[in-house]
């Protein structure tokens, strides 16, 4: 009943190709956006901003970038963490070399550096596929983290070897560094994430998206119907790495405040890959659902016992947490191997025909 599509007729192809051909989808998205832009910021505590809202958005953005490469274009990558690092270090260098630069511009430009590096490490994809390509991207992962550590110019010869985000302002409003407030940073992240998601949706449903999906599903057929595989794969690497790079810059500048090279090591790559897989490869919504599960659930689980007034030792809680999140991941993947997005799609299909399933 909630999802009644009867009576929603399309009289032009333009209408049929609208972003939300079904009214209820647009309505739901409206509610989500209202929550994200108005209700959460009004109600959230400092803790919620720092542990839930901002990181979920940033991780979702990184997963979106990876999903374009792995989910849409079918090129498996294990170097996401390092590409995030490239974005973060590029942003840091730009900000410290040109302190007058608008931090938002710097963040958006830093994606270009990771896009370039991504394309460079994407070149092997023209010859190798699948797990072998994953190993090639793994080489990128190790090389880049090594570079972050050894190339002292990158962190301005700090004794600590880490990068520290300075206070940055836009017209007197601090957006990064110790003096920036969480809510400002949250809004900035939200704005960038919304814009990039919108662009990514359009790219994936248009001609380029079909080119990517064709490359993923059957590369030989794709080539024989006129797709230049090299172009298709390298644009996927470029756009994916751009988004991942921006996510990396946001990760350090809008959330962590400081970063050491090993922050971008392989656990981060895996974390983003898990978000993309559990959310659903080849979907946009899935990245958000996956990020909520992987980033948000542990935080929520941590607060449950104290909220209920039960005292649990923190070490025990930590382990319980891992067990619960782990089993939930297995549970979700068993009931729907294609991720949370597919689960949602199934529910939606059922809702559309409910209560008469024939």
């Amino acid at each position, binding site marked *: 009943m909630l999802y009644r599509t009867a009576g929603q007729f399309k009289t032009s192809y333009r209408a049929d190709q609208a972003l939300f051909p079904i009214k209820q989808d647009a309505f739901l998205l409206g509610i989500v956006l209202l929550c994200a832009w108005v209700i959460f910021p009004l109600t959230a505590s400092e803790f919620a901003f720092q542990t839930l809202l901002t990181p979920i958005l940033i991780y979702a953005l990184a997963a979106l970038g990876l999903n374009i490469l792995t989910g849409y274009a079918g090129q498996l990558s294990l170097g996401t963490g390092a590409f995030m690092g490239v974005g973060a270090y590029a942003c840091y260098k730009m900000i410290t070399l040109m302190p007058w630069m608008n931090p938002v511009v710097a963040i958006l430009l830093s994606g270009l550096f990771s896009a370039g590096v991504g394309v460079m490490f994407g070149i092997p994809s023209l010859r190798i596929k699948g797990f072998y390509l994953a190993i090639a991207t793994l080489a990128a992962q190790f090389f880049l983290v090594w570079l972050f550590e050894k190339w002292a110019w990158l962190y301005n010869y700090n004794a600590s070897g880490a990068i520290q985000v300075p206070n940055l302002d836009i017209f007197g409003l601090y957006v990064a560094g110790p003096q920036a407030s969480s809510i400002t940073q949250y809004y900035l992240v939200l704005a960038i994430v919304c814009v990039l998601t919108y662009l990514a949706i*359009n790219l994936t449903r248009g001609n380029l998206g*079909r080119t990517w999906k064709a490359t993923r*599903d059957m590369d030989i057929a794709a*080539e024989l119907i006129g797709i230049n595989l090299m172009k298709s794969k390298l644009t996927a690497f470029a*756009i994916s790495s751009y988004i991942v790079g921006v996510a990396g810059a946001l990760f350090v500048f809008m959330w962590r405040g400081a970063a050491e090279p090993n922050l971008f090591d392989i656990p981060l790559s895996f974390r983003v890959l898990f978000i993309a897989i559990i959310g659903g490869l080849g979907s946009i919504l899935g990245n958000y659902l996956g990020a909520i599960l992987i980033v948000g659930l542990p935080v929520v689980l941590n607060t449950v016992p104290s909220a209920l007034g039960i005292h649990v030792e923190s070490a025990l809680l930590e382990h319980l947490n891992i067990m619960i999140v782990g089993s939930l991941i297995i549970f979700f993947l068993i009931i729907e191997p294609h991720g949370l997005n597919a689960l949602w799609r199934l529910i939606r299909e059922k809702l559309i025909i409910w209560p008469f399933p024939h």
Partner: protein
Amino acid sequence: MKDTIEPHVTEDGRQIGGVLMEMKNITLRFGGVVAIKDISFDIREGEIRAIIGPNGAGKSSMLNVISGFYHPQEGEVWYRGAPRPPMKPYEVARQGVGRTFQNIALFEGMTVLDNVMTGRLTHMHASIWDQALWWGKAEAEEVHNREQVEKIIDFLEIQAIRKTPVGRLPYGLKKRVELARALAAEPSLLLLDEPMAGMNVEEKEDMSRFILDVNDEFGTTIALIEHDMGVVMDLSDRVVVMDYGKKIGDGTPDEVRSSQDVIDAYLGVPHE
């Protein structure tokens, strides 16, 4: 041989034009194996040209040479009156050579509509920026090409499944969707690799009708490989017969049927 035939109109009123594609002394080797040995034949505009022969005769290799997937060691492919330089398969496709595959090669993760839309990508030129913003040229192209695609979908009678993921379709329909995807590119030359393999009689009849309609309505030149002799002899204007990589016959269905070489190698003699 019929190298001298002039442009003419067939009995059923179709226009057969000049030579569209010509294979000149093609030899293709894989290491020591000779897949195609010194074969020459031409394909004329507007005709339906069949390539037949026993398994392993080199028919599919021939099609792969035409679509630029294999590069012959000797010989030239002439297209529209000029020798074709070595090029990548996607460049060949962009020159107007479309094809379907022996084993269905659809994009399983996409809907029927998206599959057919992918076939039109050679007609889409909007920049990445336009596409990302979904405005201007990109949006206009999406709408315009959707109209073209809908015509093909109507033509092949697959309206009802346009939004179904291809993975869920039965075999016969997948074959039809594959034809739709190839047609969407508006090819000048359409290569069909065993379009009726694995179909029942009814599906074969449907497919034959579609092939004839495509040729008739769009004037598309068609080169096809098929094992069902009844179908081949009914559909095609001229037939090339291959055996062990060599050409053993070339001519109208009647000529080929009565050729002793072809009977010996492939057709056989009906049992008394």
